[in-house]
């Protein structure tokens, strides 16, 4: 059950990255490729009805982490205190920006909220990437199971590299999403951006893979001893190759490719830390793993059943709302 919960949480966070990822990407990109108010509105309406629902995957992941691995929740969240609070503010800022923007029809007013939406989006993508980088790299978890996450500690070279990779992958994902939802000049620019971002994603993925080998030598060992885990790097590779063939045409294929890359990268990260959730850089014995940081077996089983039933509903709802807003954006009287 402990192992099942690990992969369930990995799947939840991957779903969050793939879903909220495209709206973070669109937010980071729309300032560059959407010119004029109409195009900006098209970009925002492409994500408008969906971003709030996408964030629920983050809320649900948090709640499930409390009940399954309370010690990891306690240690990670308090250790990343300021970074997480800033992430919360950015989440609220994005929500305020997208809702405020169209309330007053004044170019300066709209420009203000466009910039704050852009800032909130890419900073959040960066922060989440840096946090993931630190989790992969390991943290100075002490004998009591806690660590103190100063900025100097968290903003190390490796984690910043993962942060930049996160921004680029999500922006690429966002560009591919816009390819699905837009037409004409905006579509042209989205295709152009997507092709160029693909190159940077390939380079950064390569760099990060090499860097991971140096900061976490045991990761390679894990893939060798569990060859099944190689499926994740293979998915990443398939996504990158797919992205190459969909650079100029096949918008749907491009979006699927970036989705695959996100799944592959998140899965690879999870496989390289398993069975640890927070690896201690001080002493391996201090690491919080799926075995020493979990709730009791009864608690894990009860929570799994209760949440699995609920998740069926969440998935049904997510599918339904994405179906409903399927296709190119048409601007109406309502909306953003």
């Amino acid at each position: 059950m402990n192992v099942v919960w690990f992969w369930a949480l990995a799947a939840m966070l991957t779903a969050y990255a793939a879903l909220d990822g495209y709206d973070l990407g669109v937010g980071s990109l729309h300032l560059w490729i959407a010119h004029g108010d109409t195009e900006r509105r098209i970009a925002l309406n492409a994500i408008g009805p969906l971003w709030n629902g996408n964030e629920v995957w983050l809320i649900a992941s948090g709640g499930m982490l409390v009940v399954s691995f309370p010690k990891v929740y306690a240690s990670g969240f308090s250790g990343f205190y300021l970074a997480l609070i800033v992430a919360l503010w950015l989440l609220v800022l994005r929500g305020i920006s997208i809702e405020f923007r169209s309330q007053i029809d004044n170019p300066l007013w709209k420009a203000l909220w466009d910039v704050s939406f852009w800032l909130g989006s890419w900073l959040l993508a960066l922060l989440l990437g840096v946090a993931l980088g630190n989790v992969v790299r390991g943290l100075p978890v002490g004998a009591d199971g806690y660590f103190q996450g100063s900025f100097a500690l968290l903003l190390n070279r490796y984690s910043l590299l993962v942060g930049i990779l996160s921004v680029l992958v999500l922006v690429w994902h966002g560009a591919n999403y816009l390819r699905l939802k837009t037409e004409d000049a905006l579509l042209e620019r989205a295709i152009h951006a997507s092709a160029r971002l693909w190159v940077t994603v390939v380079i950064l993925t390569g760099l990060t893979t090499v860097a991971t080998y140096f900061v976490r030598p045991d990761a390679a060992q894990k893939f060798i001893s569990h060859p099944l885990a190689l499926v994740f790097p293979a998915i990443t590779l398939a996504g990158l190759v797919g992205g190459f063939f969909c650079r100029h045409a096949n918008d749907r294929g491009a979006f699927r490719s970036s989705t695959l890359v996100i799944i592959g990268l998140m899965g690879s990260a999870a496989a390289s830390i398993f069975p640890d959730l927070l690896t201690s850089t001080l002493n391996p014995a201090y690491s919080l793993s799926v075995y020493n940081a979990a709730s009791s077996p009864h608690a894990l089983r009860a929570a799994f059943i209760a949440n699995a039933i609920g998740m069926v509903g969440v998935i049904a709802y997510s599918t339904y709302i994405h179906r409903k807003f399927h296709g190119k954006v048409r601007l109406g009287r309502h909306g953003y």
Partner: protein
Amino acid sequence: MSEAVFAHRVQFAFTVMFHYLFPILTMGLSFFIALLSTVHFVTGDKRYLAAARFWAKIFAINFAIGVVTGIPLEFEFGTNWSRFSSFGGGVFGQTLPMEGVYAFFLESGFLGLFIFGEERVPRVVHWLSSVGVAAGSLLSGYFIVAVDAWMQHPVGYELDPGGDVHLKSFWAVLLNPYAGWQYAHTINGALLAGAFVIGGVGAFYALSHRHRDFAELSLKMAVIAGLILSLTQAFPTGDLNSRNVVRYQPTKLATMEGLFRTEKGAPLAIIGMPDTENERLIDPIYVPRFLSFLAYGHFSATVEGLSIYPRELWPPVELTYYAYHIMVGLGTIFIAIMLAGVFLLWRRQLFENHWYLWILMLALPFPYIANEAGWVVAEVGRQPWLVYGLLKTANGTSTNVAAGETVFTTLGFAGIYAMLAILFLFLVGRVIHQGPEVENLSAVDPGR
């Protein structure tokens, strides 16, 4: 109490009290939306549908801000209260994710269907979607109250040698005996606030001579529902919730009532200022023996006073006492206001009596205050415990977060929440300014 613990408490108090302003109305309105929608479904009268759609718009704004301000609370269990999470996450955390998971798809899914799907789905599905919104809102409240009830009266756990608790029975946690009446009292309070908001907006339209039909419908519904709800707020929900306090949390009861000395036939203090230093009430007005009756059902029962407990187990006396008396005082005034409303309705003067309409309109913020005050009694009155009898608040915090950091982030939350509050008032103000859709208001649904 150290500076850091105080900072954590202030931050949680501020963020949770700001957050709760929004669920009060989502829970409160969802019931009335379902009610209006049901009346429309049965009678086919379009006026009820227009009213339901109007309140659904306000519901949607409340819901969005409730979600946004709810996320920080979940995070704070880990960021600020990590030792509490580590201690009992496997137990109290059982119902926490269920709230997010269940409430979200029920509320968002059905709300979308209700607001946008009218032409696309059969009438019965459209009606059921309003019931789904209400079910989701009311259910989500239960999961959160269950978490709080476990902190008030922990059940279904066993202590391990390391000092942490482990889940022994999921059903015991979910069906905590403390949760039932606490939930009923909470939801009743939210519904009462919903009635006051509906009545207040109705009074506003009536006084400004706009949307006559809608105003009359709202006023009528508000005073009838409001009278029932203001009565059930006190009895049985309030009364039986305090019986649980009597049974499980004697220090909270004594603090609420300002009872310092154990007394046989204890009096009920209506007014008075607690003087904690000298363990007495200043200038009290008492109803003799009544507290004994309320707590135990007979006038000569003995009620424990605070003085039999060591001072370090006392909750903050003044805050708990005043919050409780504000809640009860306002609750009494609510009964009077709604009684007067039903009387005027009976005399057919409700829609014309300007004095009363003004009072009803200006009463709108007070149920919010009463709801928040009630939670202050529940949470501050539980101190010094975080989990009653098991974990002290001072032992639940994150030791790796400094007081200054928490003060800094609290100020940040204050700033960003001020912007949210402005956004909320702006959006709700606009919906109220636009008013309900009036086209074909009095026409009967041709589909019937």
